[in-house]
């Protein structure tokens, strides 16, 4: 996709990630500037998780998602979680814990999931940038704290 179209699609999809939504979900947006989404998930008393979506080549490729502590430091261990979404790794390309879920670049590039093509998911409403962010958030909530 042409770089201008990539940026336009990114901007279109982050436009509805509003302060009102952040307030309701207890999200903190540190950045919504192309090509990154930088967002913290907070919830009463639990351990904050900060995720960064690197959205170059969106949506020919899914976002590469990195996991961080509240201060921005890379996590060296995956958040405790019963869903299996937060994988201890290390991922063979990033050497870090990663999001093991459709919609994450690390999932689709992992040797175990090369047959699950992003192309088959990318046009679904659950796989917009907000949709993927919501999925990660819902997974995190099941183990938050």
């Amino acid at each position: 996709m042409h770089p201008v179209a990539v940026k336009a699609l990114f901007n279109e999809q982050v436009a509805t990630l509003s302060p009102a939504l952040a307030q309701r979900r207890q999200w903190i947006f540190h950045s919504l500037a192309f090509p990154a989404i930088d967002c913290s998930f907070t919830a009463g008393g639990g351990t904050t998780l900060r995720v960064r979506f690197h959205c170059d080549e969106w949506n020919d490729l899914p976002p590469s998602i990195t996991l961080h502590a509240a201060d921005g430091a890379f996590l060296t261990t995956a958040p405790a979680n019963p869903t299996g979404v937060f994988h201890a790794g290390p991922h063979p390309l990033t050497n870090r814990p990663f999001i093991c879920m459709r919609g994450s670049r690390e999932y689709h590039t992992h040797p175990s999931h090369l047959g699950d093509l992003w192309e088959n998911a990318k046009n679904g409403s659950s796989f917009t940038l907000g949709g993927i962010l919501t999925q990660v958030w819902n997974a995190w909530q099941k183990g938050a704290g």
Partner: protein
Amino acid sequence: MSSEHNEYGPDHGPDHGHEEQFVEVSISTTAGFYPADEFDRIPANQKVEVQLRKAQNKLNIRDTAGWIATVTLDSGKRQIDVTRTYRENGLSGKVEIDWGPSEGGGG
């Protein structure tokens, strides 16, 4: 006139219990809010999915397979059954529904 002897029956004045017949609903998604501002006043005996379908159409959400609707109460976040009514879900007053895809399976 005593509320025991009016056209609404015993203890049922024109306003008595009226508010319990309705809920005020706002739905949040990453595609936007429905309604865009404030809340819609909805009969409490209406199924939740009716308002979700309106939100889907208004917000141009193509497909909602695998989506879950949740509310956050004092006791915490709770998934609601969209095929049941607000009353059947134990909801009253102002109802803020968060709607979006559940997490995909990890592996």
